[in-house]
């Protein structure tokens, strides 16, 4: 059974985690504040918050992201942050915003964030697992897998052209 709360860490470890998260976020192009919270959340490891301006946007990375990254066979910290950067791009990228459906569902947004994240992730393995995440969301929402695969292919082709 997973622990309910992370073990305590020193101030220097806390700072090191923040720096690592921020380094990854900046490499992926994230603009805004990056915060680290030493707690387990139900978000899966990180959450993006859109603010009034892009400079005020916030990326909160928590202990869950580091726990998953450490297992070696779950989403890496890079993949988790790439997904959140995907959310920022969906909110802030001019061309993407213009072509997104108004009032899109949460599932659609999560799928798109994963696919955007898959294209900006530096490690192909991270890109692949974000694509699996997108496929999984579509299948879970009731779409047959063959159709989900075709939709993902079409969206990836579109995103490559726009980004």
């Amino acid at each position, binding site marked *: 059974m997973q622990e309910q709360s992370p073990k305590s860490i020193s101030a220097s470890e806390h700072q090191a985690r923040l720096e690592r998260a921020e380094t990854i976020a900046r490499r992926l192009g994230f603009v805004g504040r990056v915060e680290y919270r030493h707690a387990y959340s139900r978000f899966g490891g990180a959450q993006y918050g859109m603010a009034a301006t892009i400079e005020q946007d916030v990326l909160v990375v928590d202990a*869950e992201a580091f726990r998953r990254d450490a297992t070696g066979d779950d989403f890496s910290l890079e*993949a988790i942050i790439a997904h959140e950067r995907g959310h920022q791009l969906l909110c802030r990228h001019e061309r993407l915003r213009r072509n997104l459906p108004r009032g899109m569902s949460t599932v659609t947004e999560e799928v798109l964030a994963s696919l955007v994240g898959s294209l900006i992730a530096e490690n192909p393995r991270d890109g692949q*697992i974000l694509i699996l995440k997108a496929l*999984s969301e579509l299948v879970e929402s009731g779409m047959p*897998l*063959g159709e989900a695969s075709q939709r993902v292919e079409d969206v990836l082709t579109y995103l*490559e052209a726009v980004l």
Partner: protein
Amino acid sequence: MIGAKKLSTIRKELRAAFAREKKNPIASLDRKIRELCKNKPATKESRSLLLLRDALAQVVEVKVPRRRRRQPANRAKKAL
């Protein structure tokens, strides 16, 4: 947010979905990739298709058809 579902669970669910539908999209993806790469350097489109193909390869079991072994001709046993 990426959500709490583990990657291993995602793979398991997708494998089950593929097994139910019995469709393998990798072959058609491979054809498209070969077509895009024919006599041309890799394009953005071929790279994203490769990413998708490699992601699917993690969950689709590609059955390699086994070649039937040729039966060796009966050889006369050498007298020892």
